[in-house]
């Protein structure tokens, strides 16, 4: 059994190097480039018009629905990972436990499918 913390210490060092690199590139981008700013250049992109409303005003709710569904399924996945790693140790009991859990989630999935939560709204 390896010491798990040593691995993650190394990953931490690597991550900090990556972060430093990212920050250096960010700083470089503001230092090395030329800067000639005027009002027109600093407005938001809007195909030549002046933007007449805030960009973040209205959002389709379907996106929120996808976010909520993700939570359910991602949690399910995270619960299945430990079973998959230890499935030869937990034997048939673990298998049946997993299958019952899986069936409940899939029941929910079928309900979502039937209720039309997964059908992307057609615009018309």
């Amino acid at each position, binding site marked *: 059994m*390896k010491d*798990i913390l040593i*691995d993650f210490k*190394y*990953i931490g*060092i*690597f*991550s900090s*190097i*990556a*972060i430093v*690199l*990212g920050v250096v*590139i*960010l700083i*470089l*981008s503001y230092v*090395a*480039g*030329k*800067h*000639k*700013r005027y009002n027109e250049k*600093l*407005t*938001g*992109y*809007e195909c030549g018009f002046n*933007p007449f409303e*805030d*960009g*973040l005003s209205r*959002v*389709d709710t379907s*996106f929120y629905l*996808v*976010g909520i*569904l*993700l939570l359910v*399924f*991602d949690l399910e*996945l995270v619960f*299945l*990972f430990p079973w*998959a*790693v*230890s*499935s*030869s140790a937990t*034997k*048939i009991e*673990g*298998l049946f436990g997993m299958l019952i859990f*899986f069936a409940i989630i899939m029941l929910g*999935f079928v309900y979502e499918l039937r209720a039309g939560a*997964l*059908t*992307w*709204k*057609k615009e018309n």
Partner: protein
Amino acid sequence: MFAYFYNKIWTDIDVSFLQLIFTLTFITQILELLLLIIGVLIGVAYFTLLERKLISAIQRRLGPNVVGAYGLLQPLADGLKFLIKETITPTHAHGILFIIAPAISFILSIIMWVVLPVGYNVVLVDPDLGLLFCFCIGALAVYGIILAGWSSNSKYSFLGGLRSTAQMISYEITIGFVYLCVIVFTQSLNISEIVYIQSATIWFCIPLCFLAVIYFILILAETNRHPFDLPEAEAELVAGYNVEYSGMIFALFFLGEYSNMLSMSSMAVILFFGGWLSPFGGYVGVFTGCFWFMLKLAVMLFLFIIARAAFPRYRYDQLMSLGWKIFLPLTAGFFVLEVLVLTSLGCFSV
């Protein structure tokens, strides 16, 4: 025990020598990490050149051929040009978030590489939870995109960011199921272990060929590539979440995206095509494990580029229903099927 070593160290070995050793190992570790990062960045640069050359060949054009012989210096020239371009921060953008979003995207895509083995023992860190680590880092990559889309405060980038996020999180679930199917075989989340088990048995692309194909389609969608590049559908959203970005901070997004593409393809090679294993058994001369890994990776990347050149783009509702209604039930069903087949073969019995 401890006292014995304590005495041994402090009497037998010179203290300054010990410190020197510690410093040297630390410096070599840092150098290794830097080498990895530089390797990834050069790989990304030349992947873009390969992409441009191959697509131009498919479309019967010449492609970049002016800078250096056969355009070989083109990526470096591009990088330099990115550097000297002006970085514009629009006045109505949410300052600090606007700046750190591309950095998040870039940093996460680089961190992914630290656990990927490219040869026998050629890996920087080999944690027992390697696959889970990759899964988590891949999930975090959404933050760079949603922050960029939101903080630009522009309709195009916001819509592009939302679309991209919804697409990535939908396909992430399915990718999780694919990982699950593999680790039921290996009983381990250690990435090297997955390859060891394939060398002892068989490449997983043979029993799981169905999943290997699905995984390839999924990583096309997960990295926002053609034919699933809805976030930057040029005809409708201009450039998606990075419409307000310019200069080097745009290049950060670009590098992050391509580095993600390379790491996800490496993952596919490791999971299904035996990682660094030679298809003929032994390793002869220059055909080392790293060579075979790179060869398989190159084939995957060719497929990526050919998919871009050959297929038209999906419509957004088609894309979402493909993810939720086809791939998710398929992979979940395959997972149950695989588990039941393993049970019938006696893998989980007492």
